[in-house]
């Protein structure tokens, strides 16, 4: 409207232009927030969902377990969003020097590759990716920062039941 250049407003209050600018800024923030916030919550939902603990699954007879680790596969009911499946898990089960049965998770603690037993004929677990080595008990010898995780073991009626994965308790 009035365009008297060079004439500064005398009053120290907020000018009309400033007021409109702030209001525009606020409106923009509201619109951006209103649009983006639901999407952000939508995207981070998997983090915030409650995790269910897996149940104990019957895997193998107790009498079959030897001192040498053997790979056993067992199934758990896995819910991955809309995709429910009977996922197969792998455990290396053996009897320790103390006579206790324990089951190691095959996921390498370095970067999550899958380890194998004795692939280099060295009586160790070996990871093919970066050459991490572990002892029978899952103790990390090289590369990996932590020992192999264990499955919780329950023995019932002569069978080995495996449960949730926990940090190694043997080293």
């Amino acid at each position, binding site marked *: 409207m009035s365009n008297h250049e060079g004439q500064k407003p005398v009053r120290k209050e907020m000018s009309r232009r400033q007021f409109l600018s702030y209001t525009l800024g606020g409106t923009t923030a509201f619109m951006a927030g209103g649009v983006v916030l639901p999407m952000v919550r939508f*995207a*981070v939902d*998997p*983090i915030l*969902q409650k*995790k269910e603990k897996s149940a104990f699954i019957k895997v193998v007879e107790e009498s079959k377990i030897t001192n040498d680790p053997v790979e056993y596969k067992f199934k758990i009911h*896995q819910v*991955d*969003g*809309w*995709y429910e499946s009977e996922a197969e898990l792998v455990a290396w089960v053996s009897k320790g020097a103390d006579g206790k049965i324990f089951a190691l998770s095959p996921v390498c603690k*370095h*970067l*999550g*590759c*899958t380890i194998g037993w004795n692939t280099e004929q060295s009586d160790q677990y070996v990871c093919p*990716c970066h050459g991490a080595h572990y002892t029978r008990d899952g103790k990390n010898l090289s590369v990996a920062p932590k020992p192999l995780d264990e499955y919780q073991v329950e023995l019932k009626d002569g069978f080995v039941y495996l449960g949730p994965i926990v940090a190694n308790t043997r080293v």
Partner: protein
Amino acid sequence: MFKAVYNWIDERLDVAPLWRDVADHEVPEHVNPAHHFSAFVYCFGGLTFFITVIQILSGMFLTMYFVPDINNAYASVDYLQHKVAFGGIVRGMHHWGASLVIVMMFLHTLRVFFTGSYKAPREMNWVVGMLIFFIMLGLGFTGYLLPWDNKAYFATKVGMQIAESVPYIGVYLKELMQGGTIVGAQTLTRFFAIHVFFLPGALLALMAAHFFMIRKQGISGPL
């Protein structure tokens, strides 16, 4: 006929300056491979753009067959590559183009670095260029998972574990990218969304900024 249509549009929108600005700007001799053969090193930027266009086009066509679902992803890639006419070539363009774009971009970066072209006043363009570089690596990483073969699955698991090793936020970062606690159905859809919408969107915006700055500042002078 064409001229009449052009004139009609030009009268209303005054488009001539837009394209004349692009068409008529002068290109100095020291970047012209026809004058100095060694100036071919200045072609890598343009070639990166060319391969990027191939990537975008071939990617668009691949989504006509691809299904981002763990039961069907592999089958759809298998089908489009082996059953669809020219499928091997179109997927090949996308697969090998991904490598080639990294190579070209790498050479372009080296050219800019060793000619010192990133120095004032072109610092911002270098930063934008590096951001493009990172986005390309991100595209490579997310695209690797999509065929859902063993290579895709296990390489992604390793990548996720690297993300997890970030202190404090690593676990959340990993879960956010995976869309859950395992690499599974939700990881595939997430990676698909990131690969096809989020990263290309950012890439286009950054490329626009990159080109705008080149036009604004002109090419760096001869050494």
